[in-house]
């Protein structure tokens, strides 16, 4: 790796901790970001000459803080601070400094930084955009590309979100246990949304949006390193890894969705799956199941099956039943119906989703499944109505194309009949 690539990776990975600590000092997001930016510029100048510091985050925090204090002092005409070259050689200066930078705050600094992005007044897409900008350090241009909007629109969206969180007054004191747990829950939800934003994309834009999934996984890893004993965070990371493992198999050469049962399972990423399994095993030891762990367990059942027909659908049915109890939602019931259709047949599944017609009246997948079940039952006219509705609700060309295949099959059947 070249110097520049290494430094870039180091700056990226140090960013959440460094910006989080600078935010604690300055209590001002813009000022913290500006200080971090300046520290990065200095790192690009000094690290190639002096070599990488032992603790890049501590170095950046110190230099960023000095820079900001320097700016303040310049006004007051007081003495200059030592230049950063003094602390950038390979001696132990940094580790002493790092200790003085009260690393005990590290965990809460990063959590606070993430939590600020999860302000409940912000719509989900703004929370995600803000986290990508502030915590991950993606450029506005990169985020705009991932969201398929213009750079100007994204710039405006982020500026608006920032000014909203600036007036939100997130407390800077070390949070109590309850508050910490609440923050953790909000941040986990935001990371999950971020992943889904990348995952639900399909068609030609999938390559553009895959980085959102990777970023979500990176943040989930970060969160688990900070909170290593939280089974739900283990579950979250496991879930993301198990789903992301299927990425290469999810779309065919034409960019169309390949259903789970039609995917080439050899394309699944075995490393990610193995890591997902390992995390679930760790989480299960705590005997404190939660929605992320259950969803990860469902993904794991699929990952275990070498062929679609090996899938343990009754296990999946049971897991969805647990999820229905702990986190009831029409979408969960809809997913359960898929499992029920495999275990008990299409009629049982269709009965299960009748009640969902109202809450899911605008949901593509509801009509997709309803149509498929009706088709299996030979009720072709009703199936066609459901499929037409699904196409009208499709978000992506790939979704629509997938339903059109069903319709074509119905057409052929009626012609041959």
């Amino acid at each position, binding site marked *: 790796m070249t110097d520049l690539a290494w430094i870039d990776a180091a700056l990226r990975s140090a960013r959440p901790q460094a910006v989080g600590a600078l935010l604690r000092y300055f209590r001002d997001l813009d000022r913290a970001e500006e200080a971090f930016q300046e520290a990065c510029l200095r790192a690009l100048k000094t690290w190639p000459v002096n070599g990488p510091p032992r603790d890049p985050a501590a170095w950046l925090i110190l230099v960023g803080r000095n820079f900001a204090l320097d700016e303040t002092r310049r006004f007051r005409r007081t003495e200059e601070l030592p230049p950063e070259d003094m602390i950038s050689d390979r001696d132990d200066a940094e580790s002493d400094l790092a200790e003085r930078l009260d690393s005990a705050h590290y965990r809460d600094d990063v959590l606070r930084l993430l939590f600020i992005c999860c302000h409940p007044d912000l719509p989900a897409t703004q929370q995600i955009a803000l986290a990508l900008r502030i915590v991950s350090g993606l450029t506005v241009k990169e985020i705009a590309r991932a969201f398929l909007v213009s750079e100007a629109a994204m710039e405006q969206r982020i500026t608006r979100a920032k000014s909203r969180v600036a007036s939100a007054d997130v407390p800077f004191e070390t949070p109590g246990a309850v508050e910490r747990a609440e923050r953790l829950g909000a941040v986990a939800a935001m990371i999950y949304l971020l992943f889904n934003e990348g995952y639900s994309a399909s068609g030609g834009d999938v390559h553009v949006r895959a980085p959102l999934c990777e970023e979500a996984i990176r943040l989930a890893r970060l969160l688990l390193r900070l909170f290593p004993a939280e089974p739900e965070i283990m579950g979250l990371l496991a879930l993301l890894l198990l789903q992301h493992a299927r990425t290469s198999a999810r779309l065919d050469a034409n960019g169309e969705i390949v259903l789970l049962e039609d995917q080439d399972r050899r394309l699944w990423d075995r490393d990610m799956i193995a890591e997902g399994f390992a995390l679930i095993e*760790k989480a299960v030891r705590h005997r404190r199941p939660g929605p992320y762990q259950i969803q990860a367990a469902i993904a794991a059942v699929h990952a275990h099956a070498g062929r679609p027909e090996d899938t343990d659908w009754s296990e999946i049915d049971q897991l969805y039943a647990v999820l229905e109890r702990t986190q009831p939602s029409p979408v969960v019931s809809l997913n359960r119906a898929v499992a029920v259709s495999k275990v008990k047949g299409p009629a049982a599944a269709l009965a299960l989703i009748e009640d969902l017609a109202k809450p899911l009246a605008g949901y593509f997948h509801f009509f997709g499944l309803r149509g498929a079940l009706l088709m299996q039952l030979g009720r072709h006219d009703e199936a066609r109505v459901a499929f037409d509705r699904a196409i009208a609700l499709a978000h992506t060309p790939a979704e629509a194309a997938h339903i059109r295949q069903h319709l074509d099959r119905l057409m052929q059947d009626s012609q041959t009949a």
Partner: protein
Amino acid sequence: MLYAILCYHDEAVVNSWTKEEDDAVLAKRRVVTDRLATQKKLGPVARLMPTTAATTVRNGREAVVIDGPFAETKEQLLGFYLVDCGTLQEAIDAARQLGRDETGAFEVRPVRYFAPGTQPGSQPGE
């Protein structure tokens, strides 16, 4: 003489490599390991899962199982075992038994990649 070469790196950095970057590093290293292998000088090679997949067993009268990697700095890495277990629990139990009535700790970390290599000719201390 047998030597263990232990790999240390900032995992946040390594985990943020793209697949291409990761492959490039491995390809560069493979030139060296291939040469060592033809000279019959390469024993087992393992790449471990991230530390978030680790569990630590702290020995004592009652062993304590802690999530996460071994993070203390006052103890040093002195050796390792490679065990093939069906479950994490089985591996943790093995670590508990190994450390019975001892102090110190065992970190139990799943292995991501393993190549057995050749049985090295020399023995420790030779």
